[in-house]
């Protein structure tokens, strides 16, 4: 009798512990499903990336039924929209479930609705590219016009993102009502910021796509090209920072725990989140810094607005290295750099995000260079830009995502990563880093020599200058090959951790604050204030160009199919 009571008590306690400290199994299923889609997209997108690199180097020629531009469009959409989007929703939902004691049933349902909408959208978009009706690249700039179904597919993807965003808002608001006076756990604070940014960032591009659909159907004759580009980049750059903020969430929340340290400062981490939310959207304008139709004064003002986004990133760089030093010294690291050796270099959960962070130093510096008018003019339409975003997204973000997957997938599937798989994962990360160093390094260099982006292989009638690019393009292909091997490895490891790894418990690492940490101020929780400030800053950045583009609108352009 007594043992039955004890057993029942243990079971109840375990359930309660699971409820409040672990990710709910139903929520785990949702997140794992998102991860499955994400890594399948990575595999296909990565494979297409290699084909594209080989054609760009002049090694192969893609067949007419699936040419270079179809490959490029699919590679872009699958990797920057589906791999990252599905991953971040799966990760954030798992984290919200873990830190807030499970998703509300209606929020879980919203998660599944979001998943369905994103999958439908992806299938519709991909089908249009495959049949050759949408070789418009991932930026889908008009006047190049895809089939209207391509844009309709994108609407489904955006709707899926919105449903996921509101699911998190509902869950966080509910938790705050039930836990008066408490700060939302840092992870969920990040999730709130990320989804606010994503929701607001997608408003402009949604309007753009809703003008492109009737235009592509032929119901309207023309479209305002400059306005479309401006609305696209109000989203495009925000999306970049959404990925970045997602990666940063793991740097602040999980990495300190993994290395046996504590959070540097809870207040600083929250300040980074709301500063990025408030400042980010107008930063998109620097992508149009060489576009015609805007005055130099306006572009110069936007340089300041863009550079302001660098401020929270510098705060993060400081906090990360301070946290590493504290943790290393606690473990006995002595001297100026002795703490550095004490970090767990053989743990892939640390190595992957560390390389990601370190890469953000040159990647961020490149970004700051490109934000400047004159420097941007030198590199704007060259492979330098492609090299830049393969460093930011391809390393800083992707490697952090891999690092997350290596503990989150086994945590969700109730399995453990064996030392052998850890070693394999370290090789995967090293291979990825070397591959990207070749590829991105060559792209940066050849970009400075003027090699254009967004074009398939050409020697420009055997021009000496164009022929001089070839060795670098071969390096791009070499890097791409190493990257594909790494992609195959990471996909195999993730699915192994999902279905085949030994059963067991893996921790969801959540760092604690230092014992003597100052309390986090209450004002950090006033999201309504941050949102109002965000609206004010966006209006500062976008009212001038948008009014000009609408009121001084050019005649507009009919759709063109250039392929």
């Amino acid at each position: 009798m007594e043992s039955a009571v004890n057993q029942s008590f243990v079971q109840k306690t375990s359930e309660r512990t699971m409820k409040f400290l672990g990710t709910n199994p139903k929520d785990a299923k949702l997140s794992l499903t998102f991860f499955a889609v994400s890594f399948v997209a990575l595999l296909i997108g990565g494979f297409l990336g290699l084909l594209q690199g080989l054609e760009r180097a002049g090694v192969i020629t893609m067949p007419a039924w699936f040419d270079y531009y179809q490959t490029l469009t699919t590679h872009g959409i699958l990797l920057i929209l589906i791999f990252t989007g599905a991953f971040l929703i799966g990760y954030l939902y798992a984290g919200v479930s873990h830190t807030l004691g499970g998703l509300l049933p209606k929020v879980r349902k919203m998660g599944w609705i979001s998943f369905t909408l994103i999958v439908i959208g992806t299938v519709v978009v991909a089908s249009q590219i495959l049949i050759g009706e949408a070789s418009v690249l991932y930026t889908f700039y008009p006047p190049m016009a895809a089939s209207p179904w391509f844009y309709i597919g994108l609407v489904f993807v955006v709707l899926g993102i919105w449903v996921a965003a509101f699911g998190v808002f509902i869950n966080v608001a509910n938790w705050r009502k039930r836990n008066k006076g408490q700060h939302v756990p840092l992870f969920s604070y990040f999730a709130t910021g990320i989804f606010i940014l994503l929701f607001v960032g997608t408003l402009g591009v949604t309007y753009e796509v809703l003008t492109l659909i009737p235009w592509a159907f032929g119901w309207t004759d023309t479209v305002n090209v400059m306005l479309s580009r401006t609305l696209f980049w109000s989203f495009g750059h925000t999306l970049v920072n959404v990925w970045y903020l997602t990666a940063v969430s793991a740097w602040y929340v999980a990495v300190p725990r993994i290395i046996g340290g504590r959070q540097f400062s809870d207040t600083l981490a929250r300040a980074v989140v709301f500063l990025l939310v408030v400042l980010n959207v107008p930063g998109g304008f620097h992508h149009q810094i060489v576009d015609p139709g805007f005055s130099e004064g306006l572009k110069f003002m936007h340089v300041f607005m863009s550079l302001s986004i660098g401020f929270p990133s510098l705060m993060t760089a400081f906090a990360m290295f301070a946290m590493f030093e504290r943790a290393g010294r606690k473990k006995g690291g002595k001297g100026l750099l002795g703490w550095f050796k004490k970090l767990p270099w053989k743990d892939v959960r640390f190595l992957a995000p560390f390389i990601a962070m370190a890469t953000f130093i040159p990647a961020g510096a490149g970004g700051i260079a490109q934000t400047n008018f004159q420097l941007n003019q030198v590199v704007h339409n060259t492979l330098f830009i492609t090299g830049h975003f393969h460093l930011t997204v391809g390393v800083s973000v992707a490697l952090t995502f891999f690092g997350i997957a290596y503990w989150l997938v086994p945590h969700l599937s109730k399995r453990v990563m064996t030392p052998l798989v850890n070693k394999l994962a370290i090789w995967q990360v090293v291979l990825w880093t070397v591959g990207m160093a070749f590829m991105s390094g060559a792209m940066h260099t050849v970009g400075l020599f003027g090699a254009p982006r967004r074009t398939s292989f050409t020697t420009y009638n055997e021009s000496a200058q164009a022929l001089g690019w070839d060795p670098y393009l071969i390096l791009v292909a070499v890097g791409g090959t190493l990257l594909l091997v790494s992609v195959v490895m990471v996909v195999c490891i993730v699915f192994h951790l999902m279905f085949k790894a030994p059963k067991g418990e893996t921790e969801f690492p959540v760092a604690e604050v230092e014992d003597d940490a100052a309390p986090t101020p209450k004002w950090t929780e006033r999201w309504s204030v941050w949102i109002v400030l965000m609206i004010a800053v966006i209006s500062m950045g976008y009212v001038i160009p948008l009014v000009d583009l609408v009121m001084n609108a050019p005649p507009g352009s009919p759709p063109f199919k250039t392929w």
Partner: protein
Amino acid sequence: MKQAKYGLILLLFLMVPPVIELSESIMSIHMHMQMPLLGIAGMLMVPYFKEKFPRFFEKWNANGIPGILLFMIIIIYWLFPRTMDEALTVPYVEVFKFISWPFLAGVPLRDSWGKLSERAKGIFLIVIGIIYTGMGFLYLFAEDQLCNNYLVIEQRALGWGFLFIALSILLYYAQDKLIDHSKYE
């Protein structure tokens, strides 16, 4: 003291000729960025002034009302299209802008804000919201060019800017009134 230094640096930065040139070349930047930034420079200097002249602030702005009235007078003055024009063409008016915004608008605003009752703050936000909405409509719908130095298209952009700022202020007021923060905090 640190804040005062930052305020002074900001003020000096805004006074550098190329910065003046840029910030006054576009109407919206002139009114919605340069002028508020001058105000912010003054706000940052408040702790220094209060430390140096505590009795002055206690005597002349005991309940915050004189300060907020001075702030309102200054910003309403700078809302007139003619004053913006004069700032560009009459050097004395330009000098007055660089003195009035930081020291007669920014300083009294920050000093008064902590002293005002919740009700007075609410009234202030509503009044500013309404004035900015009105200015927004004025600049959007005036058929004539209101400033000699700026084109009608810039006038329209400024109008939209006013409307968005008014929306932000009114949203801030609404969230403060409608959301019961005690439920969460």
